[in-house]
Protein backbone atom coordinates (compact mmCIF):
# COMPACT_ATOMS: atom_id res chain seq x y z
CA UNK A 1 0.00 0.00 0.00
CA UNK A 2 1.30 3.43 -0.91
CA UNK A 3 -0.15 6.82 -0.04
CA UNK A 4 0.77 10.01 -1.80
CA UNK A 5 0.71 13.21 0.19
CA UNK A 6 1.67 16.39 -1.71
CA UNK A 7 4.63 14.73 -3.36
CA UNK A 8 5.62 12.59 -0.34
CA UNK A 9 5.01 8.94 -1.04
CA UNK A 10 4.44 6.90 2.09
CA UNK A 11 5.07 3.21 1.76
CA UNK A 12 3.69 0.40 3.85
CA UNK A 13 6.44 0.66 6.48
CA UNK A 14 5.93 4.42 6.90
CA UNK A 15 2.24 3.83 7.52
CA UNK A 16 2.97 1.08 10.04
CA UNK A 17 5.41 3.38 11.86
CA UNK A 18 2.82 6.16 11.95
CA UNK A 19 0.24 3.77 13.34
CA UNK A 20 2.62 2.67 16.11
CA UNK A 21 3.54 6.29 16.96
CA UNK A 22 -0.07 7.44 17.02
CA UNK A 23 -0.87 4.72 19.51
CA UNK A 24 2.20 5.40 21.66
CA UNK A 25 4.70 8.09 20.67
CA UNK A 26 6.92 7.29 23.66
CA UNK A 27 8.14 4.03 22.17
CA UNK A 28 11.84 4.01 21.40
CA UNK A 29 13.21 3.30 17.93
CA UNK A 30 14.34 -0.09 19.20
CA UNK A 31 10.89 -0.96 20.56
CA UNK A 32 9.21 0.23 17.36
CA UNK A 33 11.68 -1.70 15.23
CA UNK A 34 11.11 -4.84 17.30
CA UNK A 35 7.36 -4.39 17.02
CA UNK A 36 7.52 -4.01 13.24
CA UNK A 37 10.37 -6.49 12.79
CA UNK A 38 12.70 -3.99 11.12
CA UNK A 39 16.04 -2.50 12.17
CA UNK A 40 15.83 0.42 14.62
CA UNK A 41 18.09 2.46 12.31
CA UNK A 42 15.46 2.09 9.59
CA UNK A 43 12.78 3.29 11.99
CA UNK A 44 14.99 6.25 12.95
CA UNK A 45 15.59 7.23 9.32
CA UNK A 46 11.93 6.93 8.37
CA UNK A 47 10.76 8.99 11.36
CA UNK A 48 13.34 11.73 10.74
CA UNK A 49 12.27 11.91 7.11
CA UNK A 50 8.60 12.18 8.03
CA UNK A 51 9.44 14.90 10.59
CA UNK A 52 11.37 16.88 7.99
CA UNK A 53 8.52 16.54 5.51
CA UNK A 54 6.00 17.78 8.09
CA UNK A 55 4.06 14.52 8.00
CA UNK A 56 4.79 14.19 11.71
CA UNK A 57 4.10 17.69 13.00
CA UNK A 58 4.84 17.27 16.70
CA UNK A 59 4.72 14.97 19.71
CA UNK A 60 2.36 16.12 22.44
CA UNK A 61 0.86 14.77 25.64
CA UNK A 62 -2.90 14.28 25.60
CA UNK A 63 -3.95 15.68 28.96
CA UNK A 64 -7.17 14.62 30.63
CA UNK A 65 -8.18 18.06 31.89
CA UNK A 66 -10.82 16.70 34.25
CA UNK A 67 -8.33 14.44 35.99
CA UNK A 68 -5.83 17.31 36.04
CA UNK A 69 -8.39 19.27 38.05
CA UNK A 70 -9.07 21.93 35.41
CA UNK A 71 -12.57 23.35 35.63
CA UNK A 72 -13.83 24.19 32.18
CA UNK A 73 -16.66 23.70 29.74
CA UNK A 74 -16.45 22.95 26.05
CA UNK A 75 -18.94 24.14 23.46
CA UNK A 76 -19.45 23.66 19.76
CA UNK A 77 -20.16 27.00 18.15
CA UNK A 78 -21.71 27.22 14.68
CA UNK A 79 -21.15 30.62 13.12
CA UNK A 80 -23.30 31.56 10.12
CA UNK A 81 -21.41 34.03 7.98
CA UNK A 82 -21.65 36.27 4.98
CA UNK A 83 -19.91 34.14 2.28
CA UNK A 84 -17.65 37.07 1.34
CA UNK A 85 -16.34 37.35 4.91
CA UNK A 86 -16.22 33.68 5.81
CA UNK A 87 -12.50 33.14 5.38
CA UNK A 88 -11.65 36.27 7.31
CA UNK A 89 -13.98 35.24 10.16
CA UNK A 90 -12.39 31.77 10.29
CA UNK A 91 -8.90 33.31 10.41
CA UNK A 92 -9.87 35.71 13.17
CA UNK A 93 -11.51 32.95 15.20
CA UNK A 94 -8.37 30.85 14.89
CA UNK A 95 -6.40 33.57 16.70
CA UNK A 96 -8.43 33.40 19.93
CA UNK A 97 -6.91 31.16 22.59
CA UNK A 98 -10.43 30.26 23.79
CA UNK A 99 -11.01 28.54 20.43
CA UNK A 100 -9.18 25.27 19.99
CA UNK A 101 -10.51 24.00 16.65
CA UNK A 102 -11.96 25.81 13.63
CA UNK A 103 -13.55 24.28 10.52
CA UNK A 104 -15.54 25.59 7.60
CA UNK A 105 -18.47 23.67 6.21
CA UNK A 106 -20.67 24.12 3.20
CA UNK A 107 -24.20 22.94 3.85
CA UNK A 108 -27.25 25.00 2.88
CA UNK A 109 -25.38 28.03 4.17
CA UNK A 110 -21.70 28.68 4.65
CA UNK A 111 -20.83 27.83 8.24
CA UNK A 112 -17.85 27.94 10.51
CA UNK A 113 -17.77 25.32 13.23
CA UNK A 114 -15.50 25.98 16.17
CA UNK A 115 -14.76 24.29 19.46
CA UNK A 116 -14.61 26.75 22.34
CA UNK A 117 -13.31 26.23 25.86
CA UNK A 118 -14.20 28.48 28.80
CA UNK A 119 -14.10 28.32 32.57
CA UNK A 120 -17.87 28.53 32.94
CA UNK A 121 -21.06 29.42 31.03
CA UNK A 122 -20.84 33.10 31.93
CA UNK A 123 -17.32 33.43 30.53
CA UNK A 124 -18.33 31.45 27.45
CA UNK A 125 -21.23 33.80 26.82
CA UNK A 126 -19.15 36.88 27.46
CA UNK A 127 -16.49 35.71 25.01
CA UNK A 128 -19.05 34.98 22.27
CA UNK A 129 -20.98 38.21 22.88
CA UNK A 130 -17.96 40.51 23.05
CA UNK A 131 -15.44 38.86 20.76
CA UNK A 132 -17.27 36.69 18.21
CA UNK A 133 -20.64 38.36 17.52
CA UNK A 134 -19.02 41.76 16.68
CA UNK A 135 -16.74 40.29 13.99
CA UNK A 136 -17.63 41.70 10.55
CA UNK A 137 -19.46 39.06 8.50
CA UNK A 138 -20.99 37.17 11.44
CA UNK A 139 -24.71 36.76 10.74
CA UNK A 140 -25.79 34.62 13.70
CA UNK A 141 -24.41 32.02 16.09
CA UNK A 142 -25.68 28.73 17.49
CA UNK A 143 -23.85 27.25 20.44
CA UNK A 144 -24.19 23.83 22.06
CA UNK A 145 -22.48 23.16 25.36
CA UNK A 146 -21.04 19.67 25.58
CA UNK A 147 -22.37 17.83 28.62
CA UNK A 148 -20.70 14.44 28.26
CA UNK A 149 -17.90 13.09 26.11
CA UNK A 150 -18.22 9.50 24.88
CA UNK A 151 -15.21 9.34 22.58
CA UNK A 152 -12.30 11.61 21.74
CA UNK A 153 -9.70 9.96 19.53
CA UNK A 154 -7.47 11.05 16.70
CA UNK A 155 -7.83 9.37 13.34
CA UNK A 156 -5.27 6.59 13.30
CA UNK A 157 -3.67 5.39 10.09
CA UNK A 158 -4.76 1.84 9.54
CA UNK A 159 -2.60 -0.25 7.32
CA UNK A 160 -4.83 -2.23 4.98
CA UNK A 161 -3.71 -5.80 4.72
CA UNK A 162 -3.25 -7.14 1.22
CA UNK A 163 -5.40 -10.09 0.10
CA UNK A 164 -2.32 -12.40 0.23
CA UNK A 165 -1.67 -11.60 3.90
CA UNK A 166 -4.95 -13.12 5.06
CA UNK A 167 -4.13 -16.47 3.47
Amino acid at each position, binding site marked *: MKMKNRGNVLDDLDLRILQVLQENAKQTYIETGRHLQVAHSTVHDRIKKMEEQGIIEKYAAIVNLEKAGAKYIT*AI*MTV*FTDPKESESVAERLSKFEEIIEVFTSLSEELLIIAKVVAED*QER*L*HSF*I*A*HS*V*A*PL*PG*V*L*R*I*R*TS*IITKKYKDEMFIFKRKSSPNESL
Partner: protein
Amino acid sequence: MKSFSSSSRILRKLPRKNAFYFFTSIGNYTGINSASLEEFIEKIKEVNIKSLEFHLYRGDFEEWADKTLEDKGLAEKIRSLRTLKPVGNALRDQLYFIVSKRFEEVERQTL
Protein backbone atom coordinates in the same frame (compact mmCIF):
# COMPACT_ATOMS: atom_id res chain seq x y z
CA MET B 1 -31.11 67.80 34.29
CA LYS B 2 -28.55 66.45 31.86
CA SER B 3 -26.25 68.79 30.01
CA PHE B 4 -26.34 69.11 26.22
CA SER B 5 -23.06 67.23 25.86
CA SER B 6 -24.05 64.26 28.03
CA SER B 7 -27.39 64.01 26.20
CA SER B 8 -25.60 63.98 22.84
CA ARG B 9 -23.28 61.34 24.20
CA ILE B 10 -26.22 59.08 25.12
CA LEU B 11 -27.61 59.45 21.59
CA ARG B 12 -24.30 58.82 19.82
CA LYS B 13 -23.62 56.04 17.33
CA LEU B 14 -21.41 53.43 18.98
CA PRO B 15 -18.53 51.49 17.43
CA ARG B 16 -19.44 47.96 16.33
CA LYS B 17 -17.74 46.30 19.31
CA ASN B 18 -19.86 48.30 21.76
CA ALA B 19 -23.21 47.56 20.12
CA PHE B 20 -25.81 45.51 21.99
CA TYR B 21 -25.94 41.97 20.58
CA PHE B 22 -29.22 40.14 21.12
CA PHE B 23 -28.94 36.49 22.18
CA THR B 24 -31.75 34.05 23.01
CA SER B 25 -29.64 31.97 25.41
CA ILE B 26 -25.97 31.36 26.28
CA GLY B 27 -23.96 31.66 23.04
CA ASN B 28 -26.97 31.84 20.71
CA TYR B 29 -26.81 35.11 18.81
CA THR B 30 -29.91 36.16 16.86
CA GLY B 31 -28.04 38.28 14.31
CA ILE B 32 -29.76 41.41 15.61
CA ASN B 33 -27.76 44.20 17.22
CA SER B 34 -28.10 47.87 17.95
CA ALA B 35 -25.36 50.46 17.95
CA SER B 36 -27.37 53.39 19.37
CA LEU B 37 -30.28 54.12 21.64
CA GLU B 38 -32.46 54.87 18.62
CA GLU B 39 -31.63 51.52 17.01
CA PHE B 40 -32.21 49.78 20.32
CA ILE B 41 -35.83 51.01 20.36
CA GLU B 42 -36.41 49.62 16.86
CA LYS B 43 -34.87 46.27 17.72
CA ILE B 44 -37.02 45.85 20.84
CA LYS B 45 -40.01 45.68 18.49
CA GLU B 46 -38.56 43.02 16.18
CA VAL B 47 -36.38 40.71 18.26
CA ASN B 48 -37.61 37.34 19.52
CA ILE B 49 -39.34 37.70 22.90
CA LYS B 50 -37.05 34.97 24.31
CA SER B 51 -34.15 37.32 23.72
CA LEU B 52 -35.77 40.16 25.66
CA GLU B 53 -36.48 37.82 28.58
CA PHE B 54 -32.96 36.39 28.48
CA HIS B 55 -31.26 39.78 28.65
CA LEU B 56 -33.67 41.50 31.06
CA TYR B 57 -33.28 38.84 33.75
CA ARG B 58 -29.50 38.69 33.37
CA GLY B 59 -29.33 42.46 33.82
CA ASP B 60 -27.68 42.92 30.40
CA PHE B 61 -29.88 45.83 29.26
CA GLU B 62 -29.25 47.91 32.34
CA GLU B 63 -25.53 47.16 32.22
CA TRP B 64 -25.32 48.27 28.57
CA ALA B 65 -27.34 51.41 29.32
CA ASP B 66 -25.14 52.25 32.29
CA LYS B 67 -21.64 51.26 31.12
CA THR B 68 -21.82 51.71 27.36
CA LEU B 69 -24.48 54.33 26.65
CA GLU B 70 -23.54 56.02 29.94
CA ASP B 71 -27.17 56.66 30.77
CA LYS B 72 -27.65 55.86 34.44
CA GLY B 73 -31.24 57.14 34.32
CA LEU B 74 -32.24 54.57 31.69
CA ALA B 75 -30.34 51.85 33.52
CA GLU B 76 -32.29 52.60 36.69
CA LYS B 77 -35.64 52.50 34.88
CA ILE B 78 -34.82 49.13 33.29
CA ARG B 79 -33.70 47.81 36.67
CA SER B 80 -37.07 48.82 38.12
CA LEU B 81 -38.85 47.05 35.27
CA ARG B 82 -36.93 43.87 36.05
CA THR B 83 -38.23 43.83 39.61
CA LEU B 84 -41.80 43.74 38.23
CA LYS B 85 -40.91 40.44 36.47
CA PRO B 86 -42.79 41.04 33.22
CA VAL B 87 -42.77 38.32 30.54
CA GLY B 88 -43.91 37.91 26.94
CA ASN B 89 -45.44 40.83 25.09
CA ALA B 90 -46.02 42.73 28.33
CA LEU B 91 -42.24 42.85 28.71
CA ARG B 92 -41.78 44.01 25.12
CA ASP B 93 -44.43 46.74 25.47
CA GLN B 94 -43.14 48.01 28.80
CA LEU B 95 -39.51 47.99 27.74
CA TYR B 96 -40.39 49.76 24.51
CA PHE B 97 -42.35 52.37 26.43
CA ILE B 98 -39.53 53.02 28.93
CA VAL B 99 -36.76 53.23 26.33
CA SER B 100 -38.67 55.32 23.77
CA LYS B 101 -39.84 57.74 26.47
CA ARG B 102 -36.27 58.07 27.67
CA PHE B 103 -35.07 58.64 24.10
CA GLU B 104 -37.56 61.48 23.59
CA GLU B 105 -36.55 63.00 26.93
CA VAL B 106 -32.84 62.94 26.11
CA GLU B 107 -33.44 64.13 22.56
CA ARG B 108 -35.40 67.16 23.85
CA GLN B 109 -32.39 68.12 25.97
CA THR B 110 -30.21 68.34 22.90
CA LEU B 111 -32.51 70.82 21.13
